[in-house]
């Protein structure tokens, strides 16, 4: 659904309008999902509706797929010759744009947290400091190779010549991180933070339900219109229950 959201953004759509009404059956969504279903049915690998990040990584790194649109974090594995058959024949580019470049490329991050109930807070803190330090990056670079270094974590990584010479994608990733804007991610203004997700807690449920209906459209069980209508209804129900919009 992450890719679907950026696809919708670039076709000019958004998840919610400024009063939090869902817009899942709008024209932009319809265009985006029809394009998605056409593309994957005609040119996509079999099993696309149940392929996730790992399955696609396996397909692409063995040369079974020619193009893959996903996170920059895959670059390290794909450029590593011991893990990928296509390491020497790779190129990369920003995700395609339909009507607007806004929201066409996403931003996500991971974090490490220490629970408040922990009995070893100092030890945990020490570990986290070490695991995200420059010394750790050096250690990974020397032990596993410089392409495997965790991307997008420290500025010093991108100033490190050993990294930038081993990883041709380094500068591109840095730019992509700087240019993605989660506060301004769609053609028309929207009330949420997030490019490929909506930063409200209810989105976990909404995203899963909408994902199910889009999978049905992808396998041909329903038409794109029916899928989007049922996604719209399900999202409206959840938003009403959560109190964002009136019944």
């Amino acid at each position, binding site marked *: 659904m992450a890719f679907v959201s950026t696809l919708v953004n670039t076709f000019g759509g958004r998840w919610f309008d400024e009063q939090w009404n869902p817009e899942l059956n709008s024209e932009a969504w319809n265009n985006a999902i029809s394009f998605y279903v056409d593309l994957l049915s005609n040119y996509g690998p079999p099993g696309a*509706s149940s392929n996730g990040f790992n*399955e696609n990584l396996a397909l692409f790194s063995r040369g079974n797929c020619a193009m893959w649109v996903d996170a920059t974090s895959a670059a390290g594995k794909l450029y590593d010759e011991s893990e990928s058959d296509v390491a020497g024949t790779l190129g990369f580019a920003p995700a395609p744009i339909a009507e607007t470049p806004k929201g066409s490329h996403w931003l996500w991050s991971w974090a490490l947290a220490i629970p408040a109930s922990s009995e070893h807070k100092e030890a945990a803190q020490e570990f986290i400091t070490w695991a995200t330090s420059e010394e750790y990056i050096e250690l990974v670079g020397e032990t596993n190779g410089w392409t495997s270094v965790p991307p997008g974590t420290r500025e010093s990584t991108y100033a490190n010549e050993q990294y930038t010479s081993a990883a041709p994608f380094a500068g591109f990733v840095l730019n992509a991180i700087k240019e993605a804007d989660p506060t301004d991610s769609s053609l028309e203004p929207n009330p949420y933070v997030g490019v490929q997700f909506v930063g409200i*807690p209810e989105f976990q449920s909404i995203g*899963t339900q909408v994902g*199910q209906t889009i*999978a049905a459209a*992808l396998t041909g069980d329903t038409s794109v219109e029916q899928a989007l209508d049922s996604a719209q*209804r399900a999202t409206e129900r959840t938003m009403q*229950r*959560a109190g964002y919009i009136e019944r």
Partner: protein
Amino acid sequence: MNRTRTSGRTVGGLRTLSLQAPAVTLLLLWMIVPLGMTIWFSFQRYNLLMPEMTGFAGLENYEYLLTDPALWSAMGTTLLLVGWVLVITVVGGTLLAVLFQQDFAVRGIARVLAISPFFVMPTVSALVWKNMMMHPSNGVLAWLAQSLGLPALDWFSSLPLTSIIIIVSWQWLPFALLILLTAMQSLDEDQVEAARMDGAGPLAIFFFITLPHLKRAISVVIMIEMIFLLTIFAEIFVTTSGGPGLATTNLAYLIYIQALLDFDVGMASAGGVIAIILANIVAIFLVRMVAKNLED
């Protein structure tokens, strides 16, 4: 009231009750307290994301769930899933039990192999089936189909519920086999020999001697499996996430999406109560069917 045995001791009456009381009380509490709390929460507004929203919700949670257009589909899917897995495991388990009762060269190893699927974690076996067996590009079944000249089948897109049924039956067949095999071992060999001497063929022996003997074990298998199969979640979560559409959303998965992902304790409890009611209906139906057999 107090019966006396020939040894002069009494059976029944107050002494027995007071000795049994601690165990029975513990079991009762164990059952009543979670059930009571679940029912209580289902009538409350209790959402972990919105802690200020409290109060008596009446039937609101139930209304929201019962008006979910996906609910009836989920119940139907649950019943289909449970029904098919029961049929496959009981029939397959009986046939395999008869097979493993015979003595053949590699019986020991074969028995271990036949029993092992039950001990693989559900998520692991679902992933193995999804990525290594049923995947249309990388899977063994696709490779087999292609070497026979047939197009590879995308199991999880075209036959999602069937795929889940296959995975779950593969996991639970060893359980049925184990219980039925143990029951087979108590089959009276003399009876079988007598039947053979009277000219009964293997099929007649199976239907008139083996099956009636196994009735009790089969009812045990059905009851235990039903309890677990109604709450299948891991296999669905890991493979299809309930989709495509609602094809593999069973009641447990529906409650997960509607309530647990929203951290809505009140609604999740309401879903739990609905699941209990469904389970009880199925149980009454099955117990009635099975009680006839236990009478013999």
